[in-house]
């Protein structure tokens, strides 16, 4: 006897159609799963048996073979439980194949027959074919976000059996939930003083420029970074779907009944492994932190405390906006276009950038500087010193400008970038800079001076021009760049090697 039921399985952030075939024949009682199942998939046997028995169904004391087709793709996780159970019922004659029809099944089973939601539901919907989809009531809000499939939310296997046998009608989803209120993001108005750091955040948000903050402990680097998502515009439909898919696949909580509409803010601890950061962990090929931060902000606090090879793994995704992870089982590409914000102490004691201020030994500084590679530091267009806020600012009642006011300027500046044919100014191609960021005479001579004195490299020149373009956009000067814009761009680009690597101030 044979039972065939369609379902789907997750790999990376993509769903793959899986056909569950169960064959029951005479022989010693056994249960075999074939078709590249991973451990959690193979364990389905115990869950399915208990769930069937607690739902008043029979477990056939015969030889059972479960095939998960196509056999070349790895099947991961517990989402196939429900489909296996239904195929078992068909194969053992407790339900007839025509009663299943074209329905697909998605869900994990509890031992008591409960049907539970599956991580990555939103990614799996399209892979389950065109027929009605039976899935956990938990996942129905998420499933409703994409497409117009007929959905049957169920809570228990017993319910599914009753519907299949025609004893009850298939349930239909209730009315859609109202989108949840936007989460309260931390507001920039809470930051006291610190005009340079605030401005750097605004420029980073407007131009998509990666930002690195140097500063002693307690200077508020983390507080500043957490305010960046509030300055970014809400995600458009495509970005929202992409981010929601990634968050769903990564098992993160997503808003009930709505796409992720706000730029995510991910702040992995510095103990993170490169797999945790880049993705590809377990057979599930889970997306990593940098993908979870896609279309939002990836904040790396204590940048120098991350393992050097972990940081180097960031370089390719920073360039391409996509991270490709190859494992023996599969190769997966995850979206990874994010705004990188780093924060670090200039040296172990934290005061190393101030002339004459450092208290570290030379060897401690050398060890510290080896931890962050020059090429990575180079990717930060904006590098600023963040000092401790003044006591009078902390205790005063003057609130800074609010996030909403800054975000309005950011949206206008971003619109200008879109008109130039790029998402943000940070992506402006070099050969178009002369056309879209022409330099006034005084601005050109300022840059020439910086180049001649060695403060600026050729690569740095382009980056400064892009940042100056963003500053000009923010200040309502959409055409020529003046010396003010260029001087500000230079001021927001601290020489990282001077901050980190050099124990000496100015030796004559």
């Amino acid at each position, binding site marked *: 006897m044979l039972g065939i039921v369609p379902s789907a399985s997750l790999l990376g952030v993509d769903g793959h159609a899986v056909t569950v075939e169960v064959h029951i024949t005479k022989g010693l009682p056994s249960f075999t799963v074939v078709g590249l199942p991973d451990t959690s998939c193979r364990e389905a046997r115990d869950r399915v048996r208990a769930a069937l028995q607690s739902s008043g169904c029979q477990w056939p004391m015969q030889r059972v073979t479960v095939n998960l087709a196509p056999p070349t793709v790895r099947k991961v996780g517990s989402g196939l439980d429900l489909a296996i159970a239904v195929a078992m019922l068909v194969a053992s004659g407790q339900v007839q194949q025509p009663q299943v029809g074209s329905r697909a099944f998605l869900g994990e089973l509890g031992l008591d027959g409960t049907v539970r939601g599956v991580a990555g539901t939103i990614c799996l919907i399209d892979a389950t074919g065109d027929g009605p989809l039976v899935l956990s009531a938990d996942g129905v809000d998420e499933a409703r976000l994409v497409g117009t499939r007929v959905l049957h939310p169920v809570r228990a296997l017993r319910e599914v059996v009753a519907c299949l046998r025609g004893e009850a009608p298939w349930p239909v989803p209730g009315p859609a939930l109202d989108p949840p209120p936007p989460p309260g993001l931390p507001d920039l108005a809470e930051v006291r003083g610190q005009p340079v750091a605030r401005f750097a955040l605004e420029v980073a948000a407007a131009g998509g420029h990666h930002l690195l903050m140097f500063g002693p402990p307690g200077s508020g680097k983390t507080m500043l970074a957490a305010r960046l998502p509030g300055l970014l515009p809400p995600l458009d439909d495509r970005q929202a779907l992409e981010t929601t898919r990634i968050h769903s696949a990564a098992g993160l909580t997503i808003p009930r009944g709505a796409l992720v509409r706000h730029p995510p803010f991910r702040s992995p601890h510095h103990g993170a492994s490169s797999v945790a950061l880049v993705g590809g962990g377990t057979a599930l090929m889970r997306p990593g932190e940098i993908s979870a931060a896609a279309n939002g902000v990836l904040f790396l606090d204590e940048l120098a405390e991350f393992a050097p090879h972990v940081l180097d793994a960031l370089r390719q995704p920073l360039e391409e906006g996509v991270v490709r992870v190859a494992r023996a089982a599969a190769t997966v590409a995850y979206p990874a276009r994010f705004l990188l914000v780093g924060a670090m102490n200039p040296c172990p004691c934290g005061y190393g950038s101030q002339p004459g201020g450092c208290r570290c030994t030379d060897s401690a500084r050398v060890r510290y500087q080896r931890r962050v590679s020059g090429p990575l530091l180079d990717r930060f267009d904006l590098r600023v*010193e963040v000092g401790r806020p003044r006591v009078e600012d902390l205790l005063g009642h003057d609130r800074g400008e609010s996030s909403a006011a800054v975000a309005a300027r950011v949206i206008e500046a971003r619109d200008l970038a879109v008109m130039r044919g790029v998402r943000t100014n940070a992506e402006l191609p070099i050969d178009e800079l002369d056309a879209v960021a022409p330099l006034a005479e005084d601005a050109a001579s300022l840059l020439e001076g910086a180049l001649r004195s060695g403060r600026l490299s050729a690569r740095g020149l382009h980056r400064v021009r892009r940042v100056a373009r963003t500053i000009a956009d923010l200040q309502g000067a959409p055409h020529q760049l003046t010396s003010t814009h260029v001087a500000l761009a230079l001021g927001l680009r601290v020489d990282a090697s001077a901050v980190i690597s050099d124990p000496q101030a100015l030796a004559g």
Partner: protein
Amino acid sequence: MTAPDRHRAGAAIVLAGLPGMGPRRLAALLDAWGPIEALARVASGRIERLELSDGTPLLAEMPLDRGDTLRRAWADAASSADPVAAQASHVERGVAVVLHGDPGYPDALAHDIEPPAVLFALGSLEHLDGPRAAIVGTRRCTGAGAGLARELGRDLTAAGVALVSGLALGIDGAAHRGALDVVRGGPGRAAPVGVVGCGLDVVYPERHRDLWDAVAASGVLLSETPLGVRPAAWRFPARNRIIAALADVLVVVESHAVGGSLHTVTEAERRDVPVLAVPGSVRSPAAAGTNQLLAEGCHPARDAADVLVALGLTPAARRPRSDRRRAPDEAGAALLEAFAWEPATLEQLAVRTGASLGSLAVNLEALVAQGWVTVRGGWYERVAP
């Protein structure tokens, strides 16, 4: 040089280059037996009963009987070394090797309480004959400190005072650069003297190679280790004692609350060498050590004239230095005032002046271009003429 002299020098070179051979051990060995017999005894391990100048045994300083290990290491190194070749290589590189007590050993060091037993010199030892002032300070200096060290080096050299320093990063190097600015400027100039803690062919720090070569060419470089000896942390205090011994007066330009320059001060005080300290801002960590010295009664060194007076020389009337920099505009001048001669970040300046970031950045860039302000990392600093 006669053949026996060459042999003596070669043996001294080999002894001075043995692992763990510090100035006191070397002095004890050479004083007891002279270089040739000392080398033979070291090679065969017969050095048991020797004591250092303060009465402690030569090799029993280490816990857990490191003495025996060291004696064996010395014996191995000494018996395989070739004194003649060692001496020849020093001659070839132009390095003079002078033993304490020999003619040609500089008077400036001969009567010191801990004179180097063997002195290696690149350049002419005659440069040690005139008045000498040592300038030392932290490697992690401010731009203002480096500027002042350079000015002192320049003015003292021009006044005929030989500048002694350690060629380290920061203050030391800046002072020597000042000396080199004027050393060829005319009659009456003194030559720079560099004292280093490693072999004269091992340039340390590597970034000061140009300085190293220039000091050797126009003055003299001194060391108490033979060619090829790498710098080691324990050699720098020994180097500092030579700087203190050579100085007629010691000037500390900037020093943190703890640091090598304060060790040089201790060595100077053991030798009754007057110590002067440059006053710094009480907020500057790089001036904590110097300000403490002043609090303890050191004389302040505000300029070269103060140092010359301490040397018993008459300072020339101070001429205002010509400043060739273009005068800053009104906004630039106001911004310079806001610095108050302390390093500041863009943010601090913005808070201090209340100016908009844009105009502040433009004015700062103009001051940088005109040479009134330097920028390093995120810190801006006002520069003296």
